Structure formats: structure tokens, C-alpha cells
């Protein structure tokens, strides 16, 4: 299947709809073939509120992506986010049958099933169940226990779940374009695939993707996902804050934010800024920064709190990686460093070839990450075969709460 290694990532973000067509070469490198994007409408806080408008945007993005990449897009990997998405860690334990001794892949499935068997709210379904580590008879951190001898097999899973109907709405919206959704991926999971390299994951890293409507984060410790989540505050809120406080239109607030605003209060030179088109209305730089600083501080505190509580922050060897459109904001790294007390770097996706200069822009971390995610799925696929994979996917999307 020659076409099977061309993947399409789709992110319906609060600020933009972005579709990335990428090709995975035989050596595993990814080449971006084309990108279609369109300013988004009808999305609030990362979730679709007006499907029709979104479809128009989506259609536009699709056209552009197809045109640039010269690929006909049929199936996409869809990034989902939203405040309803939650995560938890759970450990499953099984006893391997006595006569068997050697751990088989069935045992892994079994332990996965047990680990996943956590009481979710009944309207929620699984989005991801990510293996953290296996433990065999108390020996920890085993990446792949198949073939090992053991009696007790334990597995830690990081489970990401969300409200089924809200996810299905996103899928439905894409299907009506019509495009088939091959899989859904929680945004930061995708972004992490390209923003964090293996080293960062192993040494511990926190990825914070500050987008337009939401801020998603995912935390890796010892090469495994230990925490992830979504705070439904993003760049839109900052713009909105500026507009409300300064009483100027949203468009001007956005411009003010991008051109003059800074999240940091340090090194502040208080000058009067002229708001464009507002007949010379003047705004103090200090006030602008204060508004932004207050919001960014609060936002990052919301991310900080659960992670600090669980003690992951001490284990971030590689520090924090900021990505997403709003990470382009001035001063944000400084503020983040102030809150988390670990080194912060802004980062987009790296190590891509193709018309890639663009894609080092942190705005594209998630859609490009989707391609990588697809590639990783593909690597795992031979183990399972395509059909069972499909079944699993269907289960995952519609599936039961099991």
C-alpha cells in the first residue's frame, strides 16, 4: 500500500483550522507535503460550537492542503481537546498462569484491560491508554515484558478520557465534509511527538501548548506520560481581557497583544501606545502588560498546581517546552520560569524536511505531531494487523467505557 504512509493531521483549533499532509519515508523521516489552513470560526475553547461554520473553514483548509500537496485526502488524524478531557494513572495487575511462566502478548492485553478498568463518569470514553511501565515480579521499568519469565505482571497506564458525545461531535463534523477520521488524538499527545525528543521524554519534560482557546499540557517523566490535561484558557482569553479592560474591539486588542503586549512585567518601559484606528486612543504599556501578566500567571498556575501536587516538577530534567500560538507571546517564558522554577524553552516542531521552515513555528506543533503519531501507530501495526486495529479504533471512538 504505497499511499498508506501518507498521513494527514487535522487540528480544528480555536484560532485556525490546520491540515498537514505528510509523508513518512521508509527510513522513518517525515516529509511535509503540504499544509492547508484557514482562520477558524465556530470554535470556542477548543470545541466546536458551530459545526456549519467549522465545516466551511475545514473545507477551505482541505482544498488548500490538497492543492499544495497534490494528494487526495480521504482520512485524517484528528486532534481533539477541550476542558472535558481528563487524565489519570492506574495500575493493573495480573497473575500469569502457573504452567505458562513466559509472558505473552495476551497477558499484556489482559493487564491493559485491567488497568483501564477504572470507573469513568458514564458519559466519558477513553481517548488514550498510554502504557507507562510494566513491572514483572516487582522488577520495575520494563519496556517490553513479552517473553520474560514472571508470575506477576503489573502495568501502569496513563488514561486519557473525555466526554464521548463531545468528541463524537468533532468527528461528526469532519465526517460531514466528508473526510474519514482514522483516529483521534488528544492534542498535547500529538504535539509531544514532535516537540519532545526521546531524550527529553526520558529525562523528564513538560510540554505546555498554549493555543487560542485552550492550554494543553503533557508531562513526561522517565520516558512515560505521567500527566496530561487541558485548561480551557488560551490566547483568546488574553485578547478578550485586553478588549474588555481597555474597552476596545477584539480585533484591535488582538493586534495590540501581538505587536506590543508582553506577559512579563520586567524591563517594562511605560510608554503610551496608540491604538490603531481608535482615533488616537492611548493605552499605557504598563496596563497592557498587567492585564496579560495577570491572565498568563493564572493560566500557568492552573497547570502548575496539579503537577506540583504530584511532585512531577522536580523530575523535569529537560524543563518546560512551550508551544502553541500563544507561546509566541513576549515574556511568556520568563513568567513560566518564574512559576515553575525550571528552565523553559519555546519550541516548535523540529526534524522535519520539506517546506518546513514554516513548521518550526510552534503554531503547527500539534498537526505535525499528528503525522508523527500516525507513523508511530504504523510502526506498532504489524503486531496487530490492520483489521484488529480498526476494530480497536472503533471501540475507542464509540466505545464502551471499558
Amino acid at each position: 500500500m504505497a499511499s498508506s504512509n501518507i498521513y494527514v493531521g487535522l487540528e480544528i483549533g480555536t484560532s485556525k483550522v490546520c491540515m498537514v499532509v505528510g509523508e513518512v519515508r521508509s527510513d522513518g523521516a517525515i516529509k511535509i507535503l503540504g499544509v492547508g489552513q484557514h482562520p477558524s470560526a465556530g470554535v470556542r475553547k477548543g470545541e466546536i460550537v458551530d459545526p456549519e461554520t467549522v465545516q466551511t473553514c475545514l473545507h477551505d483548509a482541505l482544498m488548500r492542503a490538497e492543492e499544495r500537496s497534490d494528494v487526495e485526502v480521504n482520512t485524517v488524524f484528528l486532534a481533539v481537546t477541550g476542558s472535558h478531557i481528563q487524565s489519570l494513572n492506574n495500575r493493573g495487575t495480573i497473575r500469569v498462569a502457573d504452567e505458562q511462566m513466559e509472558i505473552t502478548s495476551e497477558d499484556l492485553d489482559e493487564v491493559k484491560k485491567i488497568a483501564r478498568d477504572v470507573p469513568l463518569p458514564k458519559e466519558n470514553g477513553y481517548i488514550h491508554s498510554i502504557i507507562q511501565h510494566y513491572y514483572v515480579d516487582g522488577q520495575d521499568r520494563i519496556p517490553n515484558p513479552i517473553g520474560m519469565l514472571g508470575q506477576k505482571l503489573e502495568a501502569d497506564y496513563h488514561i486519557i478520557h473525555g466526554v464521548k458525545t463531545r468528541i463524537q461531535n468533532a468527528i461528526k463534523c469532519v465526517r460531514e465534509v466528508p473526510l474519514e477520521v482514522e483516529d483521534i488524538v488528544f492534542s498535547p499527545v500529538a504535539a509531544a511527538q514532535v516537540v519532545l525528543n526521546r531524550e527529553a521524554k526520558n529525562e523528564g519534560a513538560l510540554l505546555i501548548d498554549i493555543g487560542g482557546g485552550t492550554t494543553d499540557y503533557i508531562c513526561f517523566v522517565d520516558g512515560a506520560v505521567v500527566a496530561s490535561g487541558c485548561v480551557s484558557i488560551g490566547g483568546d482569553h488574553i485578547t478578550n481581557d485586553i478588549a474588555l479592560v481597555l474597552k476596545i474591539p477584539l480585533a484591535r486588542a488582538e493586534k495590540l497583544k501581538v505587536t506590543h503586549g508582553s506577559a512579563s512585567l520586567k524591563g517594562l518601559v511605560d510608554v503610551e501606545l496608540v491604538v490603531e484606528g481608535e482615533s488616537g486612543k492611548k493605552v499605557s504599556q504598563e496596563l497592557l502588560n498587567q492585564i496579560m501578566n495577570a491572565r498568563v500567571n493564572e493560566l500557568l498556575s492552573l497547570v502548575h498546581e496539579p503537577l506540583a501536587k504530584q511532585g512531577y516538577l522536580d523530575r523535569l530534567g529537560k524543563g518546560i517546552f512551550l508551544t502553541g500560538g500563544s507561546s509566541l507571546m513576549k515574556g511568556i517564558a520568563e513568567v513560566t520560569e518564574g512559576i515553575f522554577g525550571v528552565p523553559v524553552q519555546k519550541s516548535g516542531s523540529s526534524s522535519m524536511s520539506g517546506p518546513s521552515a514554516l513548521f518550526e513555528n510552534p503554531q503547527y506543533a500539534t498537526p505535525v505531531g499528528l503525522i508523527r503519531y500516525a507513523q508511530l501507530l504504523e510502526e506498532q501495526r504489524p503486531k496487530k494487523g490492520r483489521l484488529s486495529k480498526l476494530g480497536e479504533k472503533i471501540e475507542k471512538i464509540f466505545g464502551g467505557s471499558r
Partner: protein
Amino acid sequence: MIEYNQAELSDFPDRAEFGIKVIGVGGAGANVLDRMALEGSDEAELLTLNTDVRALSTSVSSEKIQLGATLLKGMGTGGDPSLGKQAAIEAVDEIRQAVRNNKMVFVCVGLGGGTGSGAAPEVCRIAREEGVFLVVFATMPFSFEGERRMEQARRALEQIGRYANAVITFDNDRMGELIVPKDGVTQAFAAADKIISQSIRATMNVVFRPGLIRIGMDDLLTALDTDDSRCLFGYGVAKGDNRSHEALEQALKCPLLDRGKLLEEAKAILIQVAGGETMTLYEVQLVMDEISKHVGKNTQILFGTGTDKRLGNSLTVTIISSINGPAASASRTSVDESREAAPSISLGMHSDAPPSLSQSTPSHEAAFNIQDYEEEEEVQPARPPVPLSRTQAQPMRDPEPEPEFEDVSPIFEPLSDENFAESTQPLPSYSPETVPAVLRKPELRALKSPVEDDADSDLRNPIARAMDAGREPDFNRPPSLGDHEPAEVDRVEAVTESSQKITLTRMVSSGNTGRIKTRDPLSASSDGPTFPQSKPPAMPREDIAPAYASDEARQQQEMLQLEPVGGKGRFAKTDPTIVDGEDLDVPTFLRKKR
């Protein structure tokens, strides 16, 4: 007989006589009582009346009265209401003794059988003669029980309606829909009992829970004030970040509400939002915003809210309303029109209320809510009524003086174990401190103790109760048409004779909150436009403000205004993002500044 005495109004001296009694008449009534006892009722005394001594002996109520001991010799009535009536008359003195000195009596009865249909009207009559405030919860028989039993039930209901201040009927057929068909008959009846006991509790809670914006018996009557109507009742409780939303969802999911669809038809709905002290005004507002989407544009919203320490972190939403049954809708159109002409809002507080919010602990911003309702009242037009269960909230015509009631610490019970399990947990931790100080008199506590005993005895005997559950309507007994006294209910008369009701509402309000309401639902319904004197359709903020007399209350009001309503810009219409009670859609800058 307790004479209505204007002097009593002012000083309201006699606390000893306050009490609530729940009376179960017949097998079905006893089952509901058992259910209430099982779920732990600490406020009300339970009294079971039955003819069948065997059934009586299994009841867990604290008080029991055998009806017709000589007439029936401890056997049942065999489905003959005339026997039931005779039996009740025989025990009239005992019944009178039992209801005397209670201010409020709930009677639950399963109509259709002999004891229920025959004795219940007599009990109601006696209760009214004793001047208690009487609310009847009646279940109508299953349609498969036959037309004859249904007819008996209707007659009894009609008679009861003449005596009761409010009648809430539950249709067993409708109840049946709540239960999976393959469930055993025991479960089916148990579920029905549960709903009824839940309603009784909720009614007590709504009326007696100390409120910031109070709901009184008068409001309850307004909500139920449609002839030949079906009762809509919903109750939800939830915890956590999104608790206001979840509690409302649960309330709307209650079967009698049909997911809130039926609320569109209601002319008046009563909503009480209660929570622990952590309840924020914003949460109340969320609930009310949500509710307003379900109600018709002319619906009168009777809104109340209160805090109750016992609720801990949970938040409860109770919805009580009634809509016309199909039969009533035609005959009542004229009244309907006149009513619907003037949409009105009633809050637990009125502009003409004397300044007496001082008893309420945390505070409230009534004006704030009113504004919202004004905007949001315009929702969808009402749909044609669907018959399911019936409610009668008939005006009472009894010229007798009216009872006062006592605030009793609210009872609070889950409707179904699964949905409301949380509510049971905070219950024991409740301390009477939340009851306004006036009400914490020793007498009230004394009153409680027998009930607690009762709950214990109840625990001892769950099996008996379960057995009883299956027994509810007596299938085995042949229905017979007894010699009912002709039951003509003259509703016109009821409507015009309204002085009674005024007295009632006055007594209630002065007893509980000190506010005096002059509203008279009855005269309003006959006069046309809705309650003009006390419920101006648009109650401006200035009118409300004086109601907060005490400085404390005023301060709290100001404090609550800090929660900005607008201020959300482009996020005004999205799901709010609430963390730690703060609405994150409002600029941080603005929030922190304050």
C-alpha cells in the same frame, strides 16, 4: 380546634404545638411511610392507619392506629370504601387526638382500595377540623386494577380535594414507566414509594429549609395551583466543580419531569436551589439560567434558595410544578388566559416584605436574579399538555382558621440510591445551627426523639417493609362501589372564598421569616391578572433593596455583586470555565483587582 387568632400572629408564642405528621392510610400509605422511615426521617412523626391489623403490625411507624377494630375485627376492608369509611369513623377520636397539635399534616394514601379510598377522606376531614395544614399525596391505581377501583379512587380523590390544602397525585401507571418492565413487582412498588416519600421530603425541605430567598407554603400552593393537574417533581443533588449543572440535570431527569420538557407547560414552577455554605451565587444563577430555557415564557418562577450546612459540598435543586391534565385544560382556558396575560415573577422576597432578612446567614442578591429572569423568561411557547399523572392543588374552602407551621430542619433524601447517593452522606453531619435561631427551641428537639427511635426500629425490620411493598394496591380484593357520599366539588366557590388562604400565607410567612405577604393566589386567579399586589412583573432592583434591612445583609449583597455577570466578552455564551468558584472567562485583571 385551633382558632385563628390575630394576636398569635404577632408574638407567635406557642412553640410546643408545632409539629409535622405524616400519616399513611391503608397499605400503600403505610408502605410510603416505611420507606420514609427507612431513609431516615428525623423531622416528622409518622403515623400509620390501617384496618388490617396484620399489615399494621409490620409497619415501622412510631404511631399506629387500628381502624375499625370492632367493625372489621382486625381484617381488611375487602376493597370496600364504605367499610373503610366506617372504620375510620370508629377511630375518629384517636385520629383526632393524633392530628391535634400538629401544624402540618401530610397524608399519603393509595387510592382505589377500601381503606385508602374510604378512610382517607375521613382522615382529611378530621385533620381539617383540627385546623392543620393538609397536603395529600395520593396514588391512583394502575389501570389494570380495573375501572371500578379507578372510579373509587376518583371519588375519594374528589372528597379529599375538598379538605386538603393541596393534593398531589401520582399515577401508578406512570410510575410503572419508571421501572424496567421485568423488574419484580416488589421493586416496582418500592420505586413508586420512594418517589412519593422523596416528594414529601422535598416538599418539607422546600418549605422548611431556612432560606435566604425563602419559599413558603404559599409559593408551593401557587406552584401546584391548577385543578385536575399532574404534578411535576424533580430533584437532583450533585457535588464537584460542575455541581450546579449536574444537580439540575438530575432534577430534570426525574421521571415526572420528562427531562424538563413538561416544564414548558407549567404556569408556575417552584425551584429551590440549596447548598452548603460554599454555594456561590454564580451557581444559583447557572441553575436558573438553565431552568429558564425549559420554562415557557409566561411561566411564573417561584425561586428560593438557601444554604444548609448539612449539605456540605453538595448542591441540590428541587423543582415542583404542575400542569393541567387534558381534562382540565379545556374548562380552565378562561382562567388560563387571564393568568397568562401577566407574566410575573415571584421571589421568596417581596418588595412589600418587612425588613426581616436578618435571620438568613449568608446572603443573596435577589435583584440580580430577577434581572436575569426578566431576560430569560422568554423561552419557548408551551406545548399541549400530555396526560401522565395528575395533581390536584385545590384551593381550600374551609372557613376554618389556618394553621401556622414551624420550620423544621429539613430532611433530605435521595430519590434513587444511585443518583443521589451523595446526599445521604452529608446528612448525619447536619447540625441544627442552620435552623434560624428562633426555631431552635427545646420543644422541637423533643419532638425529634421519637422519630429517631422510629428510624431505629425501622432498621430492625427491613424485611417486613419489603414484604409490604408488594402488597400495595390490593389486587385480590374485589372492587366494590361503596356508598360514597356525593362528592361534588364546587370549584367556583372555592375560588371565590379566598379569605382563608390569605390567612394561611400570613401565618406561614410571619412564622418563618417575619415577612408578611398579602398575596392571595385564589383571588388572583379569579380576578384575572396574576397577583398584581405582590408580584410586579418586573421588580426593579431598588424595590428589593429595602428588603434587606440589616446592615449585614446589605453588605453581603454588595459583596456578591463582585461576581460580574457581563464581563465575559466573547465567552459570554460559552460554557463557563469555573475553577474554585471563579469564572475564569472574566479577565483575571478585573478579578484580581477587586
